[in-house]
C-alpha cells in the first residue's frame, strides 16, 4: 500500500491509491511532533480498508529545513585538523553584501568551545605527514564527551584523498556512543570550508531527523499490526533535495540530503501536470501555511531537474546536489502587524496550525488567511470542502482591534493581501528577472494550500500570461513524492589526467566498476535487484589547472564531448590543452510504479452543473457578486469567467475579475487574462 506524505508547517498532506484511484487526506501538523500527523493519517487511511499489502511510505519533510532555519538542531562538536579549528567561522573571508557598512555574519552552528583540533596532517596527495597518535585520539574523544555534544562532525584536510585519519577518530567516537558525521562520506570533494560546513549541517540535523524517522517507523509498525497488513517488504522512504527518494535509514545517516525534501516533491508534481498540459517553461509557486517556495524550469525533462551544489540555506553553504529552489518566509498562516515605523508587515512569524489563524477558532493575530476570508475570497464553509468551518465573525472582530490606521476591516484585509503579494512577487523576481529570465515567457504553476488564491494577482503584477492550477493543488508535493523514483547518487574525486580518450578508458572503467558495485549493493538494500536498476554515468571534467568542472555524460567520445561542452558554455575550447577527470559520478535509479491521473469526463463550455452558490467578494475596494464552484463537479472543457471561486477539498482557487479559466482534460484549470 503506497502512501506519500508531505509534512508542512501547517498541514500534512497524504496522497495514496485506493482501488486504483488517487485519494487525498489533509491532517493538521503538530510542529512539536511532526510524525504525529503521519500516525493519525495512517490510522484513518487503514481504518476499514481491506487492503493487506505492506505499507510503502514515501515522505517529504521540512523537519531538516526548519531545524536549520530556526537554529534548533542538535548540540554538535566539530573535530578538525589542528590549527584549522576556526575554519567554520572564517568561511571564505568574503562578505555577502558589498556596499553595506554594517556587515553581519550569523554565529556558526558550532561555537568555539566545541571545536577541537586533532594533531594529524595529510599532504595534498594523501600521504600522512602526521598520523594521529592514539593518546591524542583518546584525549580528543574525552574532550568531545565533556563538551556534552550529542552529534559530532569530523572534517580533516585532504580526507577526500585519504580517509584513514577521519576513519580512526570516527571509530573512536562511535565507540562511546556518539552519532558521527564524517566529511569523506558526506561530501568526498575538495574545498575544506564547504565540506566542513556541509558535514556540520549533517551532524546538526542527525539528532532531530533520527527522532522523527524513528517515530514514523514506529507508527508504521503499529498501523501494520492493527490493520493486519503484511510486514515483509514494508518500507519508509524519504524524499531527497535532489528529486529522488531514499530509505529512512539512509536518510537518518545523511539528513543533509533532505533539506529541500518537501519543495522537491512539489517540483516533481508540478512538472508532471505541466507535462500533461503540454507546457514546458514553468515557474512553480508553492504557497503553504508558513512559507512559499518558487522555482523556475526552462523546459525539457532532463534540464528541468537541474541541480546545484552551491545552495546556501539560512547563510550556511550546503554543497550536496539539490534542486534550485528559492524560499521566502510568508504563507497563508503568516501573521500581519504594523512595525514601529508604521509599515504593515506580513511574516515571517506564522500562526502555523496551532494556534492557527483567527478564523480557525484559537489564534488571536490576523493572518493572510483571515484577510482572504474577510474579503470573501475564501468561502466561510472553509478550506477543506466543508469539513472545517471557518469563523468569519471572530476574524472580523479580532482584526478590527488590530486594524490600526486602516478605515475598515476590509481595507486592513486588502492591505495584508497586497503586502503578502509583494513578498511573493519579489521571490519570483529573484529566480526569473534577476537571473535574466523574462516571466512573460513562462506559465505560473500555482499550488500549495494558498497558491491558487494569490496566483491571478501575482501573474498580473509580473505580466505572466498564464496560470496553471493543477488538479489537487493542495497535495501536489505529495503527488510528486508518490511518483518519485528511488535514486542514489554516488561520486568520487579521482583527479585523473587524461592522456588519450581510449588510453584512460581502462582506469575510468575501473572507477566506475567500484561505484557500480557500491551503488547496486545500496539499491538491493532499497529493494531493487540489479536488473531493475538504471545507471547513468557522468564525468566532471576540466582543463588541468581550472577549478570548476563541466559534467559530461560518460561515452566513448567523452574527451571530444568535454571540448564541445566547454566551447558551448564559455565560447572557446583548447584542444591542445591537457584535460582531466575530477570526479566520476553515477546515478542509480530504481523505477517505482507511477499512478496516473485519470482523465476527466468531457462537458460543455458552461460550468453550471458545478455551481454551488453565489457570494460577495471584495476586489479593488468594491463588493462584487462572485459565484462559487465545486471543483469536483467541473468537467473537461468547462469555462469560468472571473470573478469566481473554485472550492475543493485541499485548496481554493480565486479567479480575478479580469481573468477567465478553462478546465483541461485532466482537470487542471488554465487561467488567462480576458481579452
Amino acid at each position, binding site marked *: 500500500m503506497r502512501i506519500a506524505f508531505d509534512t508542512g508547517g501547517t498541514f500534512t498532506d497524504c496522497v495514496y491509491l485506493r482501488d486504483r484511484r488517487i485519494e487525498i487526506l489533509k491532517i493538521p501538523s503538530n510542529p512539536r511532533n511532526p510524525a504525529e500527523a503521519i500516525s493519525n493519517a495512517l490510522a484513518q487511511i487503514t481504518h476499514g480498508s481491506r487492503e493487506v499489502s505492506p505499507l510503502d511510505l514515501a515522505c517529504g519533510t521540512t523537519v531538516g529545513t526548519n531545524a536549520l532555519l530556526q537554529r534548533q538542531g542538535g548540540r554538535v562538536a566539530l573535530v578538525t585538523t589542528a*590549527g*584549522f*579549528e*576556526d*575554519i567554520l*567561522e*572564517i*568561511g*571564505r*573571508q*568574503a*562578505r555577502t*553584501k*558589498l*556596499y*553595506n*557598512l*554594517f*556587515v*553581519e*555574519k550569523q554565529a556558526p552552528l558550532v561555537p568555539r568551545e566545541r571545536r577541537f583540533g586533532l594533531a594529524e596532517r595529510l*599532504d*595534498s596527495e594523501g600521504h600522512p605527514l602526521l598520523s594521529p597518535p592514539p593518546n591524542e585520539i583518546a584525549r580528543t574523544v574525552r574532550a568531545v564527551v565533556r563538551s556534552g555534544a550529542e552529534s559530532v562532525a569530523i572534517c580533516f*584536510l*585532504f580526507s577526500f584523498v585519504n580517509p584513514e585519519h577521519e576513519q580512526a577518530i570516527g571509530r573512536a567516537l562511535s565507540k562511546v556512543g556518539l552519532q558521527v558525521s564524517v566529511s569523506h562520506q558526506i561530501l568526498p570533494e*575538495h*574545498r*575544506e*570550508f564547504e565540506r566542513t560546513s556541509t558535514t556540520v549541517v549533517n551532524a546538526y540535523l542527525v539528532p532531530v531527523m533520527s527522532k522523527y524517522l524513528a517515530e514514523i517507523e514506529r507508527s508504521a509498525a503499529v498501523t501494520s499490526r492493527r490493520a493486519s497488513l503484511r510486514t515483509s517488504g514494508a518500507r519508509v522512504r524519504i524524499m531527497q533535495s535532489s528529486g529522488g527518494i531514499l530509505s529512512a535509514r539512509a536518510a537518518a545517516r545523511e539528513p543533509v540530503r533532505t533539506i529541500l525534501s518537501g519543495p522537491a516533491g512539489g517540483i516533481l508534481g508540478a512538472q508532471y501536470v505541466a507535462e500533461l498540459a503540454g507546457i514546458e517553461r514553468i515557474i512553480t509557486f508553492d504557497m503553504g501555511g508558513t512559507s512559499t517556495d518558487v522555482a523556475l524550469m526552462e523546459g525539457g525533462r532532463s534540464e528541468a531537474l537541474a541541480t546545484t551544489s552551491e545552495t546556501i540555506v539560512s547563510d550556511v553553504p550546503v554543497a550536496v546536489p539539490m534542486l534550485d529552489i528559492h524560499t521566502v518566509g510568508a504563507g497563508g498562516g503568516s501573521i500581519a502587524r504594523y512595525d514601529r515605523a508604521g509599515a504593515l508587515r506580513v511574516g515571517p512569524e506564522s500562526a502555523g496550525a496551532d494556534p492557527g489563524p483567527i478564523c480557525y477558532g484559537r489564534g488571536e493575530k490576523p493572518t493572510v488567511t483571515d484577510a482572504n476570508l474577510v474579503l470573501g475570497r475564501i468561502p466561510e464553509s472553509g478550506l477543506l470542502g466543508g469539513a472545517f468551518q471557518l469563523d468569519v465573525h471572530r476574524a472580523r472582530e479580532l482584526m478590527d482591534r488590530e486594524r490600526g490606521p486602516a478605515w475598515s476591516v476590509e481595507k486592513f484585509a486588502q492591505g495584508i493581501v497586497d503586502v503578502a503579494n509583494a513578498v511573493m512577487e519579489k521571490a519570483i*523576481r529573484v529566480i526569473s*528577472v*534577476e*537571473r*535574466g529570465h*523574462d516571466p512573460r515567457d513562462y506559465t505560473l504553476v500555482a499550488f500549495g494550500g494558498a497558491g491558487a488564491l494569490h496566483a491571478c494577482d501575482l501573474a498580473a503584477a509580473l*505580466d505572466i500570461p498564464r496560470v496553471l492550477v493543477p488538479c489537487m493543488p493542495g497535495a501536489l508535493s505529495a503527488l510528486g513524492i508518490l511518483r518519485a523514483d528511488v535514486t542514489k547518487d554516488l561520486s568520487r574525486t579521482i583527479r585523473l589526467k587524461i592522456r588519450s580518450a581510449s588510453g584512460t578508458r581502462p582506469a575510468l572503467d575501473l572507477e566506475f566498476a567500484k561505484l557500480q558495485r557500491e551503488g547496486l549493493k545500496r539499491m538491493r538494500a532499497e529493494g531493487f535487484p540489479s536488473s531493475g536498476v538504471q545507471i547513468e554515468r557522468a564525468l566532471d571534467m576540466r*582543463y588541468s*589547472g*581550472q*577549478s*570548476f568542472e563541466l559534467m559530461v555524460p560518460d561515452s566513448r567520445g567523452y574527451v571530444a564531448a568535454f571540448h564541445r561542452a*566547454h566551447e558551448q*558554455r*564559455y*565560447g*572557446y575550447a*583548447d584542444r591542445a*590543452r591537457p584535460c582531466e577527470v575530477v570526479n566520476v559520478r553515477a546515478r542509480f535509479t530504481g523505477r517505482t510504479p507511477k499512478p496516473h491521473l485519470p482523465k476527466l469526463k468531457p462537458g460543455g463550455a458552461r460550468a453550471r452543473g458545478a455551481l454551488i452558490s453565489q457570494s460577495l467578494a471584495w476586489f479593488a475596494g468594491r463588493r462584487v457578486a462572485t459565484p462559487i464552484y465545486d471543483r469536483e463537479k467541473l468537467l473537461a472543457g468547462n469555462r469560468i469567467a472571473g470573478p469566481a471561486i473554485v472550492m475543493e477539498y485541499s485548496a481554493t482557487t480565486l479567479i480575478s475579475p479580469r481573468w477567465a479559466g478553462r478546465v483541461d482534460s485532466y482537470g487542471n484549470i488554465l487561467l488567462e487574462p480576458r481579452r
Partner: protein
Amino acid sequence: MSVDPVRLEIFKNLFHSVAEEMGAALRRSAFSPNIKERRDYSCAVFDAAGEVLAMGDHMPVHLGSMPMSVTAALHALRLDPGDVALLNDPYAGGTHLPDLTMVMPVYAAGTSRPLFYIANRAHHADIGGANAGSMGMSREIFQEGLRVPPVKIMQRGRVAQDVMSLILANVRTAREREGDLTAQIAACRIGERRLLEMASKYGKRDVISYGRHLLDYSARMMAATLEAIPNGIYRAEDFLDDDGVTPERQRIAVALRIRGKTAEVDFAGSAPQCSGSVNAVEAITWSAVFYVFRCLLDEQVPATSGLMRSIHVTAPAGTIVNARPPAAVAGGNVETSQRIVDTLLRALSRAIPSRIPAASQGTMNNLSFGGIDSRRVPGKPFAYYETIAGGTGGGPGSPGTSATQSHMTNTLNTPTEVLEHAYPVRVRRYALRGGSAGEGQFSGGDGILREIEFLSDVQAGILSDRRELPPYGLSGGKPGKSGKNELIVEGRTQKLPSKCTFYVPAGAVIRIETPGGGGWGLASANKQRGKRKSPKAPSP
C-alpha cells in the same frame, strides 16, 4: 517616451545579470587560484558613451575605476566589431600593473557604431618585473612589471598572437597567464552574446533608452541621499604607516563639502607622491569615493555612473592620491585605497554619526611569492598572490565581524586544499586572532592569524599597513589591534616590516597577524546595561 517602472526594474536586473554572468564564466574557466578561487576580478557593462550601466558584485576597487579604462581604450584605439582592447597602464586607464583590463565593443549586425561596451578586469598572479607576484617593493613603475598601454589583444575575432607572445615572454608563468587571458576574452564574448540577445528581444531602442533611464534614476537617488546630509564642510585626516622606503607617515587629508544635492570631495593637503609603491592614481581615488557614497544608498539602487553626477572629486596631481609617472603604484590600489575610505568615512562620521562605523582593518595584507616548484621534475615556475581578511569596525547598533574582507576588496580565500595542491607550501595555521578587536559598546571584529611554510626556496613580498597606527574607534570606542608580520627561519623568529621583499629557503615559515576592527561607543555603556549585543544596524 515615458518610463515604465516595471521595465526599469527588469532592465536594471538584466544589465546586472549580464555583468554577473560574465564574472561566472571568467571564474569557472580561469586557471590561476587568484581568479578562480579568490575571485579577484570585476565585470561591467557600459553604454555607447562609456557610462557604466551595471557592475557585477565584484571588487569595489576595480569597479569605480573601470570607466577610465573604457575612455582610455577609446581614446587610443578604434575598436571594430570583434576587436578587444587590453591594457594595464595605470597612467592610461589602469590601476596597478597586475590588473589586466579588457574592453570590447558590442555591435549589432548592420550597425556602424557600438551599442554598448563591456569590460572585465582580473588581477593576474604575476605580470613580470623585479618581484615574483609583481607586488613587491619598487621605486618606479618600470620595476613593477610589464606596462601595457591600450593595445588590441583580439582583432576582428582573432587573437593577436604577436601581442600575446610579447606578454607571455615577460611573465613568470606564461601558460597560466595565457589560460587566464583566454578566459577573460571568453567572458567578453559571453557578455556580448547576452547583450545582443537583449537587444533583439526588446528592441535596440528600448534597451538603449532604458540604459539612460537607469543612469538618471541612480543620479536622482544619490541626489536625494546627499540632500539628507546636513550642509557643511567636514574635514578628516588619516595616515599610512610608511611608504616602505622611508619611515615617514603618509598623510591623506580630505575636506568634504555637502551643499544641497551635491558633494565636493577635496584631497588637498594629502602627502606628495612617495618613493615607495603606495601611490594611488586618480582612478583609485575615484573608486574609493564611489564606494563610500554607494554605501550610503539602499542595496537595490543600481551602481551606475549616474551615482557620481552630483559628486565632484578634486585630487591634486603629484600627490599620493593622484600620482604622476614614473611613480610606483602597486600598493596604491590595495593599501592607499583603503586609507582613503577610512579618511572619507571619518569625515562623514562628523556629518552623520549614526550611520558610520569605526575603522575596519584598513589594509589588504597582500602576500605574494614565487619561485621554482621543486616538487616536480623538471622544476616548474610558479607565482602566487593573496590578500588576508581582518576585523571590521563596530558601528552604532551592531558589533563588527571577524575575519571578513572590508571596503575596497571582497576576495575569497584560497582553500588550503587548493593552495597546497597547486603550490609548494603548507598552511600550518589559519585561525581567528583572539583579542585583536577594539572594545566598545559595539566592539570591532577579530583579525586572522595565518602561518604558511614554504617547501621550495622562494622570493616573497608583503605589502601591508596598519602595523603601527591601528584602525580607529569612534564615539569613544577603542582602536583595534594593529597587525604584525613575522618570519621564522630555523626556529628563529624575526619581525618583518609592513612592506618588504625577501628571499627565504625551503622550510621558512611566514606568520601574518591581521588587524582587528575598531570599537564604537564607550565599552562602559554595555556594563551599565549588562549586555553585550544589541539590535541590528539601522538601515540606510
